[in-house]
């Protein structure tokens, strides 16, 4: 009977450890993927804030004033400019999550799963969400 203990050790590829994150180079599609996750978690955590904005903006004209003043006078100890930054992060999260989601649907429907297609569509996703975030950010802060 063959001795199985003498076999040469095969390399083992495990999930990367958290300490390796900084040195790990992700392809573009990998960046889209992890940002898809991060943007989703961000929106999940800030959900009560979004619904609070929905609440004060809709309930009455008085509360609508509260809504607009959040971005001027601020919210509690947080200044208005910071609140704008929070909303900007939500805008980015929403745009990235939406566009990365559409990319997923497109890949599912057309079987576009080659390396080249993944790279190009990842670039489009990052570019488009970044560009739209810049445009809406300019609108939010300067106009």
């Amino acid at each position, binding site marked *: 009977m063959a001795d199985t203990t003498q076999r040469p050790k095969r390399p083992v590829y495990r999930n990367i450890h958290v300490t390796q994150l900084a040195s790990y180079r992700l392809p573009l599609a990998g960046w889209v993927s992890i940002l898809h996750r991060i943007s*989703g*978690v961000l929106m999940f955590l800030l959900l009560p804030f979004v*619904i609070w904005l929905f*609440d004060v903006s*809709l309930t009455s*004209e008085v509360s609508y004033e509260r809504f607009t003043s959040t971005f001027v006078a601020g919210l509690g100890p947080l200044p208005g400019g910071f609140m704008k930054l929070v909303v900007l992060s939500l805008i980015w999260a929403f745009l990235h999550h939406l566009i990365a*989601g559409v990319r997923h*649907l497109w890949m599912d429907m057309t079987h576009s799963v080659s390396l080249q297609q993944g790279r190009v569509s990842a670039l489009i996703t990052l570019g488009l969400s970044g560009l739209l975030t810049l445009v809406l950010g300019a609108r939010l802060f300067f106009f």
Partner: protein
Amino acid sequence: MSKNFGTQRLVVGAHYGFTDWLAQRVTALLMAVFSVVLVAQLLFGGKLGYERWSAIFSAQWMKFLAFVTIVSMLYHTWVGMRDVWMDYVKPVGIKLTLQVFTIAWLVGCAGWAVQVLWRL
């Protein structure tokens, strides 16, 4: 009929994963439709103030669509956050706690959003 017991039982194709996979996409599409409809109404229609903003959500068809979006958000986010906890958190107790927190967080938020919507 496929055998559902013993050594010959079918161990693949339970469709639990497929159901959630599909549900996440369908709910995503519904939310995307709502987003496009909302943005379209915001872009066309003049100066935005309380009048116009509340009028958008007062329309019955918009309330219908917004409600569908809230429920979609609830399910979509549950599938997504459950995946996140399953991937990164190994201890069963902590994972269960986080999942319970997620459900409470999402159901509470969905209820709040519906309350705002139906008060209009």
